[in-house]
């Protein structure tokens, strides 16, 4: 097996729930924890989210920030055994459906809807349609790049979009835009996390410990209600192209697990396997699990306490609370 590594790379992309990595790298928190365990960790920002996951899947990075659904469909389905070491937050209004015409999911019937196909937006739409007793074939989906979503909504021929923050806030601010549905109506289903190559993690537990250490020290600073926290959040806002108010607004629509205990509780909850079951159904229906997949159980998932989902012989996605638990217990 691989000899213990000393140098690690993780990639992150600009998104409200992942911004702490930027601050951690800038403020020296990453270096501090890496030094503590005698390793080095490079934190690289990638502008294109999908590309960052692709690069991780191809082996260029040891870890990457991603959502639960993308973790299942890209690295896990691609044979790269991935462990979620940090469950950072879930979207609680950060993703939403906005329409110029419809006011409720039921009114979406027959509409042409612009969204990033096969992303969490697509999943959100599917869940929204379900609540109204509709199916995806009742609407017309137009794949639209996230970078151009705001501009697209300004175009006269676009009536409905599904997107996430900060784009969502921009779109909602358009005159005549109605909020049709958002992720707070399916809490806990769209999860943002840090995925790490399971094999690397197994061989180098110190890597996991350092990551968790970095994360919660940074979160504590951000959560600070005082001036210090404001300063940190203002900087993160600027980094993501907005300001303090903009960043706070995005944070408000996110259920951040500021303490490790919260995250551990969420990871251990029975709701998580249920959520992942929904996600894998969606993924299978849309062919995201690959051609080889004969059923939605093709890719196996493991949860704390020995719970598994799907093929137990092919577990490629693991939700692991052990490192977060160490942080909660102050054992780092």
């Amino acid at each position, binding site marked *: 097996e691989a000899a213990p590594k000393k140098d690690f790379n993780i990639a992150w992309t600009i998104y409200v729930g992942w911004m702490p990595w930027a601050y951690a790298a800038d403020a020296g928190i990453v270096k501090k924890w890496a030094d503590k365990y005698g390793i080095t960790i490079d934190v690289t920002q990638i502008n294109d989210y999908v590309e960052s996951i692709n690069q991780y899947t*191809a082996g260029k990075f040891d870890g990457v920030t991603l959502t639960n659904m993308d973790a299942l469909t890209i690295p896990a389905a*691609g044979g790269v055994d991935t462990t979620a070491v940090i469950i950072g937050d879930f979207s609680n209004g950060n993703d939403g459906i906005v329409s110029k015409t419809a006011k409720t999911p039921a009114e979406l019937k027959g509409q042409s809807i612009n969204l990033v196909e096969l992303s969490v937006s697509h999943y959100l739409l599917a869940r929204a349609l379900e609540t109204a007793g509709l199916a995806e074939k009742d609407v017309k989906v137009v794949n639209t*790049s996230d970078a151009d979503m705001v501009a697209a909504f300004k*175009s006269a021929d676009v009536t409905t979009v599904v997107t996430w923050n900060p784009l969502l806030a921009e779109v909602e601010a358009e005159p005549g835009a109605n909020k049709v549905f958002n992720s707070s109506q399916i809490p806990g289903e769209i999860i943002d996390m840090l995925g790490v190559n399971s094999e690397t993690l197994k061989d180098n537990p110190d890597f996991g410990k350092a990551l968790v250490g970095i994360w919660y020290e940074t979160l504590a600073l951000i959560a600070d209600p005082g001036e210090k926290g404001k300063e940190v959040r203002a900087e993160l806002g600027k980094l993501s192209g907005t300001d303090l108010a903009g960043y706070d607004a995005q944070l408000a629509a996110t259920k951040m697990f500021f303490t490790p205990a919260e995250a551990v509780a969420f990871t251990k909850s029975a709701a998580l396997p249920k959520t992942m079951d929904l996600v894998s159904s969606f993924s299978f229906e849309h062919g995201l699990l690959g051609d080889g997949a004969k059923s939605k159980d093709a890719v196996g998932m493991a949860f704390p306490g020995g719970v598994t989902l799907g093929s137990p012989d092919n577990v490629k996605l693991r939700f692991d609370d052990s490192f977060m638990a160490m942080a909660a217990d102050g054992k780092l």
Partner: protein
Amino acid sequence: MRRAMNIVPGPGARVLLAMLPFALLVFIYILGSAERRAVNPDDKLLPPISEMASTITRMATEPDRRTGTLVLWADTGASLQRLGLGLGFATLTGLVIGLALGMLPLVRAGFAPLVAVLSMIPPMALLPILFIVFGLGELSKVVLIVIGIAPFLVRDLAMSVGAIPIEQMVKAQTLGASTWQTVLRVALPQAMPRLLEALRLSIGPAFLFLISAEAIAAENGLGYRIFLVRRYLAMDVIIPYVAWITLLAYVLDLALAKIARGAFPWAYVGERR
């Protein structure tokens, strides 16, 4: 021993030589793919050729579950239509403006700087404005192709019209030709072969803009599919699609080359190929 520049391979050797580098590339790919598969049997980055073949065969022959169409052909049809429209309008623009710039000093003075500046604007960066003006439908895709390649065609054509020897322009005038007649019978026909050559050089960029446009907003098309499946790193779709695009572009290129040589034999008599 002859000089290297005088050694011309025979037709047989030519075909062999042309195949060689391709064979080498395929060989390298097969090696790379096998190596990655040895490490991770589910590796998606460099799927073996057999896997790509079966995927693409499926896309070409089995109707899609969601839409009921044969995905490969539906995508190809949609893309080629956009490409054709884009190339067509761009050629027309290039021809009209290029000839005007090349022939009329007044027009050149007024518009050459504008065209030079416009050709430098990265169209992708101004997409929001394009969307507002042209909507999100087929039109904006065609427009993106036109905006992307027309400035090149215009400038190239103006250049080649400018390079026609002044003696010929003078000669035409002594034969009684008006400006319009000179354009029509002297500049245009001599610019045509170069226009076709420029068009050949534009096929690559045109596909690039097409794919970019389809990546931004579309329901079908080759670029749409590539960017859609990029979401799960389905290189077994992407690589055959890219190869298919390349083949289409290459065939188009070859066809244009043949057309140019057939229609304008005088322009290729000195050709040393």
